[in-house]
């Protein structure tokens, strides 16, 4: 790690060698960073580099396995969100945490309302809140409920909320993601003003182009480690991207056989649009081809898959093997050979309280009808076959899916979709939150599907994965394809530049 050029004497926050493991995943593997009073430290890295985990540790939402946190040079023992607050740390997450029905003052003072004995002291509350809001130059009417505020107004209330709790260090996660240009200018001016008062910021952003304007120093995380810290003025964007991507990308991926250029087109999607989420798109996927959709979280990639799979209503024309298929509901799309593996397996992919067998057969249960009843023996047989084929670790097929590890849960999701005779597979973040061993098995499976002539579309936020496992990729930004790359032209920095809108 490089030490910045001009280091002020006092250090507000220091995090040393922070390590955090989740079952099967080493999320943080020795992160070290420091923040000085009145400074903006930008934290950048790919999805999954460990930024959110690190910030959750700082906020007291998670506890580190090892490593230390120092505040004003003394060891801080952050055990829960309240203690983080006492140390002067304020978190502003990307998803705001305001009570929609309450106004600015009530939200700011939630949990710390000034009271006279049993009763709220409205006058005191008002003067307390008003002081902070004026300091921030707020014009939000006091009776406006949070639900009716603009995103920028809500963000202001969030900032006021941490300031009224005497925060000296404010962590902001993707603060500009939902703001207009004008609102961003306003936010940056506000940050500068608070900096002058000695408030420090940890600023997490994917928008590399805005870091020049806002950051004093930049720390790059990769694979749960700090790889570099430099003064923002001495960190050209291409070097920053190189530091983020780092490792050679094709090390642990299986060799991808080329697609036969005469292979028939299996999937064709026409007129895919759903303003304001995404706009007019058209693409085809050949038999045996894996098409990647790269881009930032929230770029609209998931919505594209959902529209094709019938999860959301869409006017798009979807053709499989040249025949238009109905896709008004997921059931219709499934019946016509489409399989959609959602990104959030717990919320959308599995019925956690059901068994491995019941989950495996759920999407193709019609195959197991025997008269009016279900042929459970056949169900059992098919499930066992898939458990064996995918090496799913489960004591038996009656085990509740809830009790399996993430990787094995994902294999149950895969089994569910392998059971049918799908021609098209849509994978949304197929390896999220699972360990490297299970990842490798899933990659092998993708290849096997492609080899059998399926058309595959894969969304992944892990750049190495999308570079290693696809034949061709589109970069999605703000709901539209901004670039297309053939495998031979894959360059991580160019893809990141396209995804972030950085024009280098």
């Amino acid at each position, binding site marked *: 790690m490089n030490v910045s050029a001009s280091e002020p004497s006092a250090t507000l926050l220091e995090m040393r060698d922070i390590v955090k493991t989740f079952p099967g995943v080493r999320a943080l593997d020795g992160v070290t960073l420091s923040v000085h009073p009145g400074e903006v430290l930008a934290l950048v890295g790919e999805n999954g580099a460990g930024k959110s985990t690190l910030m959750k540790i700082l906020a007291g939402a998670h506890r580190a396995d090892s490593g230390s946190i120092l505040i004003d040079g003394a060891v801080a023992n952050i055990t829960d969100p309240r203690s983080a607050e006492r140390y002067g740390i304020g978190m502003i997450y990307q998803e705001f945490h305001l009570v929609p029905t309450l106004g600015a003052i009530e939200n700011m003072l939630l949990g710390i309302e000034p009271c006279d004995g049993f009763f709220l002291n409205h006058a005191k509350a008002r003067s307390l809140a008003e002081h902070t809001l004026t300091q921030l130059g707020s014009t939000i009417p006091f009776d406006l409920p949070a639900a009716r505020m603009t995103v920028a107004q809500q963000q202001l209330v969030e900032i006021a909320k941490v300031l009224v709790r005497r925060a000296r260090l404010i962590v902001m996660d993707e603060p500009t993601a939902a703001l207009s240009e004008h609102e961003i200018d306003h936010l940056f001016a506000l940050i500068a003003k608070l900096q002058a008062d000695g408030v420090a910021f940890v600023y997490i952003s994917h928008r590399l182009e805005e870091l020049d304007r806002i950051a004093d120093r930049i720390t790059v995380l990769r694979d749960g480690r700090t790889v570099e810290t430099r003064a923002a003025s001495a960190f050209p964007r291409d070097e920053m991207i190189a530091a983020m991507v780092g490792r050679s990308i094709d090390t642990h991926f299986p060799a991808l056989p080329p697609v036969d250029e005469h292979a028939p087109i299996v999937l064709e999607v026409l007129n895919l649009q759903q303003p304001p989420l995404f706009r007019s798109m058209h693409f085809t996927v050949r038999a045996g081809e894996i098409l990647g959709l790269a881009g930032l979280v929230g770029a609209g990639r998931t919505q594209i898959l959902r529209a094709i*799979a019938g*999860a959301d209503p869409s006017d798009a024309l979807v053709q499989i093997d040249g025949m238009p298929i109905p896709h008004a*509901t*997921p*059931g219709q*799309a*499934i*019946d016509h050979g489409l399989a*959609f593996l*959602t990104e959030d397996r717990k*919320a*959308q*992919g*599995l*019925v*956690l*309280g*059901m068994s491995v067998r*019941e989950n495996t057969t*759920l*999407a193709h*249960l*019609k195959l*197991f*009808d025997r008269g*009016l*009843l*279900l042929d*459970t023996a056949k169900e059992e047989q098919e499930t066992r076959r898939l458990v064996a084929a995918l090496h799913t670790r489960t004591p*038996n097929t*009656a085990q509740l899916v809830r009790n399996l590890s993430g990787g094995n849960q994902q294999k149950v999701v895969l089994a*569910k979709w392998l059971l049918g005779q799908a021609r098209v597979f849509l994978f949304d973040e197929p390896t999220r939150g699972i360990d490297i061993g299970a990842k490798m098995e899933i990659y092998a499976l993708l290849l096997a599907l492609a080899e059998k002539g399926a058309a595959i579309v894969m969304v992944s936020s892990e750049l190495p994965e999308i570079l290693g496992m696809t034949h061709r990729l589109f970069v999605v930004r703000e709901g539209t394809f901004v670039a297309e790359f053939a495998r031979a032209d894959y360059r991580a920095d160019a893809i990141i530049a396209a995804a972030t809108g950085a024009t280098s």
Partner: protein
Amino acid sequence: MKRTFIKLSLALCALIAVIVLVNAFTYGAFFTPGNIVNVLRQITSNAILAVGQTFVIITAGIDLSVGSLVSLTGVVMALFANAMPASINGSVLVVLTLLLGATVGGLAGWINAFPVVRLGLPPFITTLAMMLVARGAAYELSHGRPVPLNSDAFMSTGTGFLFRGMLPQLPGLPIPVLWLAVVVIVFAIVLGKTRFGRYVYAIGGNEEAARLAGVRVGLIKTSVYVLSGICAAIAGLLLMARFASGSPQTGTGYELQAIAAVVVGGTSLVGGRGSILGTFVGAFLIGILNNVMNLHNIESYAQEIVLGGVILLAVILDQTLKRVLK
């Protein structure tokens, strides 16, 4: 497998313990075949309502309208039976009457489900509304008075016995209990062994995952409310037959007793978990409790207090068991 086995054996032990205790408490008066049959007859309508309710609750819904539907279908069926020519064959009349009642109950269930499925309203609200509407309609149609049956074609359905005198100590098998047995067995198979039943569990366990797996969530949800309405009509028929009249007052509070039986039977109000057999055991345990308190001449007000306590205890026990077994 092992988990289910432990759970079943524990439930069985609890049941035996209850019976032994009850037997001791009642100096042997409880555990006579005659009294057991008596309990079964007493729980018939509650258990049938609870069977329908089980489907609804497993999808994470609730049906508050069933008590009122018992009286509405009862009144409608009594009016219908009275309007039919006296020359009609008795069994044919019973079947036709039930078909009409089931249509009315099923239709009410469909109306319950429509706003739930299409507009996303909470079923608590739609079925609460139906509870009021159906009760009001029953009073309107009957002008506030019970509608006495002209025909005696329903006598055996309500109060008849099968195998009478085959065993000296048994009065025979009451016909309503036979109905109960058929309902329990048929719906236990529907819930446990068919694709429809599997979808019911899947929706209660994770509606979005079920939808994305191609399950027609709207159709299945509508079906469970229709089914619950049909169960209300069956209970309505049995009660009407038993009292030889369709009364707008019957069924008051039955919806809550049915929910109690479902919950005591181990079905989770959160959805995704439960069984018809469990519901039957729940209804039976509540029936035993009522029976024992009757045998002890405990007044009905005190009975309700005890019943409330027992329901709470049963659910606490079930939750604890679930945690321990996890």
